[in-house]
């Protein structure tokens, strides 16, 4: 057997009393695209940070090409041929791209060359980072990492924020690296990508590596089962169970009606209806106005025109408070935007409740505690880090953002990409929860960047393109049809 390019042996790391990594053995061969999988909180990001010199491990060894190394800084890691693209772009918003490159001692001309290879040479490097859309920042980060010509390229959930065509370019680079006998460590929650593009995968669970195998073997079910261990029971391939269509009395209006809503003044307008008990899936490419549509529906931004009817009555929300009072609540994709990161779980769940308690005088602590613990139990939120919401893992934070509304009550739920960056097990818990809420009579609009979720969770799919709904498809529509429609093209065979 050839010598592995990267070999970690019994690497362990603890943050105070919280153990992030117990003992991880990871071996990446040269010319291998290696996937690192695991539920949220399994230790993937901690491992990447150790491999890039951001954190130092407490025990165990890291060896590159057989040489044990101690990495003290990102610069040192790069010198050893380990270059990362982190989950959040490591670009400074207030600087231009060129200034950012100079900081890391990268020649902008080299980056331009890499961008040209990715067919992105139209990017203006003198723009400030804050003025560029996120997907292109990820690509820039990738181009910068490539300039160092690393032996091991580490991609931490790079595809989570990328539209399909840019993801394809990332895969092309992974392939190129492989052909040059260099390696890639690929972290993604999208198992389809892992199966298609990775040669090996290592699954982490509870800070240990539990298995390494070829991801093509056994299929998605095996990967999920390995990731979750005992907890895998109850994960289904399809969360949606068609129930008999609920009888709606003729006189009852649909829960939410959107008519000719203009996201931007020049758009054609968005129209759709959602009934109680229904999950409407919204599919769209990056930047088709979905972010703003959700902000308008939740009362955060005003539309340029058109109307919104809630229970048959027009809603002119000037503030999220108005929408919430009409029972329309939003779970945004940026979880920390919805939460109070420094405050405990209990307060986070209770905050929307405060709208309903008398304005003056002390809050009834007993009732509050009861409602909060009901929500926590129902969502099985891991309460070990109960004191501060920001210390929860991504999946638990997402549950918390939904849990807030469970305790406070709602009638229409707007979910914006609710499973972005969440592990498969938690994803399935959220799918189940969404179905359960719909069966309980809620109307749900869910935007998702993962098209397969439409088939898994939704009753109906609407496709948004350029500020207008261009198609309504049944949930059984193939991903290919959804994607075709999302590009504004006619779907021929439905």
């Amino acid at each position, binding site marked *: 057997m050839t010598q592995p390019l990267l070999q970690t042996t019994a690497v362990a790391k603890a943050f105070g009393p919280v153990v992030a990594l117990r003992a991880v053995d990871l071996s990446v061969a040269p010319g291998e695209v290696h996937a690192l999988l695991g539920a949220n909180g399994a230790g993937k990001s901690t491992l990447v940070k150790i491999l890039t010199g951001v954190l130092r491990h407490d025990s165990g060894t890291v060896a590159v090409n057989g040489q044990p190394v101690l990495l003290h*800084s*990102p610069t040192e890691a790069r010198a050893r041929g380990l270059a990362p693209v982190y989950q959040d772009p490591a670009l400074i918003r*207030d600087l231009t791209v060129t*200034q950012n490159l100079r900081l890391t001692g990268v020649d902008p001309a080299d980056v331009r060359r890499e961008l040209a290879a990715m067919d992105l040479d139209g990017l203006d490097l003198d723009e400030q980072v804050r*003025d560029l859309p996120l997907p292109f920042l990820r690509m820039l980060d990738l181009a910068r990492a490539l300039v160092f010509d690393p032996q091991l390229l580490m991609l931490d959930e790079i595809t989570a924020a990328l539209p399909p065509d*840019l993801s*394809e370019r990332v895969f092309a680079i992974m392939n190129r690296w492989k052909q040059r006998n260099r390696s890639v460590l690929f972290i993604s929650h999208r198992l389809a990508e892992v199966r*298609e593009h990775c040669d090996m995968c290592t699954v982490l669970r509870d800070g240990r590596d539990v298995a390494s195998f070829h991801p093509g073997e056994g299929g998605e079910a095996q990967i999920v089962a390995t990731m979750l261990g005992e907890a895998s029971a109850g994960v289904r391939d399809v969360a949606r169970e068609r129930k008999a269509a609920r009888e709606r009395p003729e006189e009852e209006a649909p829960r939410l009606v959107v008519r000719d809503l203009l996201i931007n003044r020049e758009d054609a307008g968005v129209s759709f209806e959602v009934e109680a008990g229904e999950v409407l899936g919204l599919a769209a490419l990056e930047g088709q106005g979905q972010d703003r549509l959700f902000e308008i529906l939740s009362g955060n931004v005003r539309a340029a025109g058109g109307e919104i009817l809630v229970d048959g009555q027009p809603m002119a929300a000037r503030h999220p408070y108005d929408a919430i009072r009409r029972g329309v609540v939003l779970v945004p994709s940026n979880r920390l935007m919805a939460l109070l990161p420094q405050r405990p779980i209990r307060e986070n769940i209770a905050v929307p409740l405060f709208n309903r308690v008398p304005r003056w005088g002390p809050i009834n602590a007993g009732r509050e505690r009861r409602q909060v613990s009901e929500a926590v139990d129902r969502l099985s939120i891991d309460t070990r880090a109960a004191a501060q919401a920001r210390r929860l893992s991504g999946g638990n934070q997402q549950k918390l953002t939904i849990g807030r509304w469970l305790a406070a009550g709602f009638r229409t739920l707007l979910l914006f990409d609710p499973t972005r960056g969440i592990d498969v097990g938690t994803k399935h818990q959220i799918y189940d929860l969404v179905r359960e809420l719909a069966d309980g009579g809620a109307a749900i609009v869910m935007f998702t960047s993962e098209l397969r979720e439409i088939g898994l969770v939704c009753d109906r799919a609407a496709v948004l393109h350029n500020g207008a709904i261009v198609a309504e498809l049944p949930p059984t529509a193939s991903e290919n049809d959804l*994607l075709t429609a999302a590009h504004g093209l006619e779907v021929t065979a439905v």
Partner: protein
Amino acid sequence: MTATPRAEVATPLPRPSSRLERFVRRQGWVVGVALLLGILVLWRSSQIPAFGAFEVRGIVAGTMTLALLAMAQTVIVISGGIDLSVGAMMVLTNCIAARLMLEQDLGPVFLVAVLCVVVAMILSGLIGTIAVVSGVPDIVVTLAASFILAGLALIVLDGPGGGTNLRFQELLVGGFDQPLPATLWLAGIFLLVWVPFKRSRLGIATYAVGSDRAAAFLSGLNVGRTRIVAYVMGGFFSGLAGVVTTAFTGSGEPRASIGATATLTSVAAVVLGGVNLMGGSGTLLGPVLAAFCLALIPPLMLGLGWDPNYAEVSRGVIIIVVVMIGGLLQIPRRSR
């Protein structure tokens, strides 16, 4: 399950913005403050029939200290900190300078001036190091430091006193009606210290650290060292402010209240000058122009025949109104 389908249509590249758009977006605030200053100067000159070298010298030399303190505050704020001890540092160097410069020749006086600036840089660097190493918020460390520096000033000079060399005064702040020296000094510091600094890797690092410490660290920067360097730069400017005070007043004045007021005015100039108090963005020119705006208000009030006590009120009103207008203008950008 099918494989991920290949996308036929490419995600469009963001539209590059034009030079003009970019200039307005990045320098718009400074241009705005410059316009405000222009209006205030015109107004002031219309109040005095013979607006000439004497008045210009008065404005430039009288504002030089505040402009330097605004520079000190700006560098530190851009790096993500805030320094509540710049005023006290100015008072301390003023006292040291006045005590040592008394009845000296020009040569030794210049040596003392350099010494004072170096002392301020060391002290400020020390304060920055404490803030960085201890992890205590900058605002707490520098507030505490301001008390220590104010006390030291009283130890150096227990009452108004000291003195300096007349020729030194003329060279630094100009004589009776000579505005050139003060203007040249300010312009020189800006061009020879700030412009090269801003273009250097260290300067970019200062902005980077103020904008996003985590991302700066991931870019391989030494965050702590960069922040300390910003404090040393701040010390350079506030030390200079103390030396200029000595030249302008010809004496030393250890009263702590002077330092406290100066510190707060420097923060006001930073805000009015368009520097983000959270760090990471802004220029040095904006706060300097803002310092002149703030300094012009009391004489304007006097010219209008108003009670000069209203000057403080109107300074506050101007800061709120300008920052509010600026905030409103920036909303479209944020919502993009």
